[in-house]
């Protein structure tokens, strides 16, 4: 008899095992992780450090038991990004007399300095994208709401964030319903050329917006009938039921302290001029 599949939990980008170690952390810690760690590839350009950061993220994917096929879904995005950066920097990178010319394609000079910068930017972006995918893969709509509420974000903003994330799912359901209706009317989407598919998609906006407007009445009536206002419940201070289900643990505090030190380290490195891109191995070639 085969092994029973692990219980899974829907995240913003896929499914995660319910007992993933990442869920030992409070949603607020995970939300802060996204913000703090995203500062790293934004401020640090040195490719060696960004490669290390990417390796760290991949280890985190493994530890958190994130389904790595999610990254495969972004394969085309990575490839496309590579070509865009390569073209932007090699063909539109500019030229200075001190640059080392690797090849000449008519009037275009492909220089090592431009190519080097393309590599630096690409590695930097790969790390930043891996952070984003990790966050989306491990976070649920509910986690965002809990995280925001734990960080004392006003009720109306937290509620709106939760409803907005939920409405993405609703819009996708509406979108599929519209497509099914088209198929039922014998429209063969697969036979359409890409340009027609793109045009067709744009046309879906009209029913999607119409459905959103209609749904806004239902949501608003539900909110009013439950006595909600901009500040929360119209009566006395409301109990954050969902927030009461989560507690910050020692592990959270430990991770938060590490993140604070890490962030201070990044800022200090910028102020002190450490880990400059000019110190990288690429610049010694």
């Amino acid at each position, binding site marked *: 008899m085969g092994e029973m599949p692990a219980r899974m939990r829907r995240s913003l980008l896929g499914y995660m095992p319910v007992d993933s170690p990442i869920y030992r952390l409070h949603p607020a810690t995970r939300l802060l992780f996204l913000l703090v760690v995203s500062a790293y590839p934004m401020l640090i350009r040195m490719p060696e450090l960004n490669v290390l950061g990417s390796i760290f993220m991949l280890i985190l994917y493994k530890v958190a038991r994130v389904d790595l096929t999610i990254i495969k879904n972004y394969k085309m995005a990575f490839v496309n990004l590579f070509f865009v950066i390569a073209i*932007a920097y090699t063909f539109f990178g500019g030229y200075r007399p001190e640059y080392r010319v690797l090849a000449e394609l008519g009037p275009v000079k492909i220089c090592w300095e431009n190519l080097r910068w393309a590599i630096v*930017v690409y590695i930097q972006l790969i790390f930043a*994208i891996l952070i*984003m995918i990790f966050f989306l893969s491990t976070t649920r709509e509910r986690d965002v709401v809990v995280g925001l509420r734990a960080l004392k974000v006003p009720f109306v903003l937290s509620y709106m964030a939760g409803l907005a994330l939920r409405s993405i799912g609703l819009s996708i359901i509406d979108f599929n319903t519209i497509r099914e209706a088209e198929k039922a009317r014998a429209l063969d989407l697969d036979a359409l050329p890409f340009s027609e598919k793109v045009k067709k998609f744009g046309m879906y*906006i009209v029913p999607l917006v119409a459905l959103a407007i209609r749904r806004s009445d239902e949501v608003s009536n539900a909110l009013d009938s439950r006595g909600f206002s901009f500040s929360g419940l119209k009566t006395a201070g409301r109990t954050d039921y969902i927030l009461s289900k989560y507690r910050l643990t020692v592990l959270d505090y430990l991770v938060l302290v590490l993140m604070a030190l890490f962030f201070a380290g990044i800022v200090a490195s910028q102020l002190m001029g450490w880990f400059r891109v000019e110190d990288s191995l690429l610049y010694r070639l």
Partner: protein
Amino acid sequence: MPEKSVWELEPGEVRKPGTIHIAIMALLIGVGAVAGTFGSLSIPLGYGVTGFWPGVAVQAVGSIWFGMWGVIAGFLFPFISNSLAGAPLYVSFGYLPSNLIQGLLPAWAFKYFKADPRLTSAKDYAIFIVFGVILNNILGAAWAVTALQWFGLVTVESVPLFFSGWTIGNGVPALIFGIILLKALSPLVVKHRSFVKKWWA
């Protein structure tokens, strides 16, 4: 007697922001995120810039209909759509002012020039095309490439490539889908309680 502008208050009419506006803003973020993600994945030019972004129609039209609620939705949903399409968080932050202006400018123009969102005259079309298709996207593109350059992600020489990619990639869908949305749904929206005559209600 000339028809009354949709932006004018009825005698004794009191307008206040309510839960309907919160709901419409959140739902607009959902629709925009779906439309924007598809666009970002369809003809990507890198860093979330795309050759065809239908999300901009939701930004412009949503802001015309729902005032600041539409503007806020318009600058928040690209965060989600860009992230889902694989753009880093800080790049999405960099685009914030672009996405703000792309919704704010057409909303301001329609109110200022008292244009009708139902597009009943040539003036209405002209205002939408100038402020909701051309100017807003040019300003948005100008800021976006400035941000990309500031982050060191594009070179000065590649600015025209990204600038034209953003302007055309946003302008064409804004023109086509914006007009379709306004013509198809404005008659319904202006009578709906979510319609915003001032900025917040």
